[in-house]
């Protein structure tokens, strides 16, 4: 019942909001906050070109899924992909739109910025409170040339449910069975150790204020705020620095074709250069749409973004989808059918 009240309220406010700006011309979407900056940048450029605007409500991935299931928006957006079963149950399909990396930042007096190496199992132990000091043997082994201070480690995590949490815990669950069993992956988990801060900004501020802190944030945020970042050992046993190149490398090795329902989380990807915590943000749409015209407008926008949005995405420290993946996504759009049973999208 409550869900209906919300849906009515939100759709009502959308109608009111859209009425001022040419109601029939705006594409409506809702969901993930992580890709919001790049979506709105794309939408601005697209509106200049086509005159069609985007009304995107960054209410969070969970909200986006609820909105698209309730059919109050043309598309939903989520940082965590939905499984094939969930998609089928709701008559939805999904595809990756843009990617980003999650990076670990630290603040330890006595360790030079950007020169700390860690691996997945060590990170998992730190976040479970099993490694509590920076001069622990496990860390020393990964940084043989470094004189590590005897400082207590304060792990900092994202307190609110978020796609960043999902990617980070998904990675730790892959590299540490212990972590998978005791904590598990998810948008919000119960962390056995550390301090929970609110949003990227809260995590960054907690790290900056605490000597001995380590935390994780989206790369876009870390890059714009000049944080000291951990280098991670990847699946190929190589230590890599977080950068646009290492995210691209992780994305290039991803096997989208064989992922049912395009369910793919890009953590712990193979490849010498691959950054281990990379993830895509997804778009969700109904396979059977009531308003074929609205669906078509939305798909036109996504098509345009795949073609023209790469530079804008990189400027904002997001990773664009490779062209071959974009083509695959375009092919999959033939599954979206209007009320008359014909495909909405034609090349």
């Amino acid at each position, binding site marked *: 019942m409550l869900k209906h009240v919300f849906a009515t309220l939100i759709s009502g406010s959308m109608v009111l909001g859209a009425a001022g700006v040419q109601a029939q011309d705006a594409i409506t979407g809702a969901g993930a906050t992580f890709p919001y900056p790049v979506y709105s940048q794309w939408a601005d450029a697209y509106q200049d070109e086509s005159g069609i605007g985007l009304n995107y409500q960054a209410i*969070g991935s969970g909200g986006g899924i609820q909105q698209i299931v309730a059919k109050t928006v043309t598309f939903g957006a989520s940082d965590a992909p939905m499984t094939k079963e969930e998609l089928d149950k709701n008559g939805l399909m999904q595809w990756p739109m843009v990617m980003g990396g999650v990076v670990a930042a630290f603040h330890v007096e006595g360790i030079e910025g950007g020169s700390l190496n860690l691996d997945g199992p060590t990170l998992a132990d730190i976040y479970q409170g099993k490694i509590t000091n920076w001069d622990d043997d496990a860390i020393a082994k990964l940084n043989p040339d470094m004189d590590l201070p005897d400082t207590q480690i304060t792990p900092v995590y994202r307190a609110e449910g978020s796609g960043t949490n999902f990617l980070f815990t998904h990675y730790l669950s892959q590299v540490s069975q212990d972590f998978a069993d005791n904590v598990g992956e998810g948008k919000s988990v119960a962390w056995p150790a550390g301090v*929970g801060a609110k949003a990227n900004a809260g995590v960054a501020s907690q790290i900056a204020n605490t000597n001995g802190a380590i935390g994780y944030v989206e790369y876009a945020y870390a890059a714009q705020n000049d944080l000291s970042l951990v280098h991670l050992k990847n699946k190929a046993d190589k230590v890599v620095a977080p950068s646009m190149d290492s995210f691209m490398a992780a994305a290039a090795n991803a096997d989208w074709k064989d992922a049912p329902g395009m369910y793919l989380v890009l953590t712990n990807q193979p490849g010498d250069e691959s950054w281990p915590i990379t993830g895509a943000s997804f778009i969700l749409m109904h396979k059977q749409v009531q308003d074929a015209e609205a669906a078509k407008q939305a798909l036109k926008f996504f098509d345009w973004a795949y073609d023209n949005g790469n530079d804008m995405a990189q400027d904002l420290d997001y990773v664009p989808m490779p062209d071959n993946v974009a083509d695959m996504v375009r092919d999959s759009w033939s599954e979206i059918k209007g009320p008359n049973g014909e495909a909405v999208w034609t090349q």
Partner: protein
Amino acid sequence: MATTNAIPTSSLGHLSDATRRRLQRKARIDVWFERTLFAFAFAVLLLLGAIIASLMFSSWPALQRYGLDFFTENRWAANVEVFGALPAIYGTLLTSFIAIVIAVPVSFGIAIFLTEQCPGFLRQPLSTLIELLAGIPSIIYGMWGMEVLAPLLRTWFPSVFPAGTGLATAGIILAVMIIPFITAVSRDVINTVPAVMRESAYGLGCTTWEVTRQVILPSVKGGLVGGVVLGLGRALGETMAVTFVIGNNLFLDATLTGQGTSIAALIANQFSESDGTQRSALLALGLILFLITFAVLAFARYLLRNSTGRHA
């Protein structure tokens, strides 16, 4: 009820038509005025009932599924669908308790100073400043707590506050937030004590402490309790400031200064990304907070009735 106010036409016979019409119009206005007042008051009750009903309705799936475990489980792990309200209930009660322990003596002290001792020229500016504290948005307190208070606590007491944040830090922030409320109410009720009572006490040779302790405080006990309850109500439900500094640890850590969470903070953090059982469980938390607040208010009413009964 309202119709009794209508003026019978017969009794107005001696008046001119214009006057009669004017009076009748006034009577009609009055009837509608009273009906509107009643409607407003009733609407609030209706709204309250609707909120309780929808909270119970939407939290039922979670309460039914977890039963008593919902209150005894010591962690809230949404990803594995383990929902224990205990850490949040503990955090809510403890932070509010710490806040009250700190805020009550300070607020009463300020109120007594303002009414009994403060030089006239200082009274108004001081009162205004304290009321200003009440107007600061809670997110400002949260940011101040995170950026200033937490680092200070960590620097001063590194062994007690290793991260700066935690249940006690949240309690301190809450204390600062509720001091203006308790102070304002206490000052106003202490002001109601007739000057003649004070003067006679002083005339008998009482010291300031004795006047405060034995004349003023006993005669306004009920009002003071009311002020404390107002503050407590705010502390129990405070969300934004608490989220910033409480540490948001979803495991029960039954200490004073450990990292924890509160009901309001937990709901604020997880509601937007929740669905299904998790949403239902969060709404159940909301219901629990509602009941806690209700119980506190009822208890305060009870105290109030007892104390006014004794002193009236």
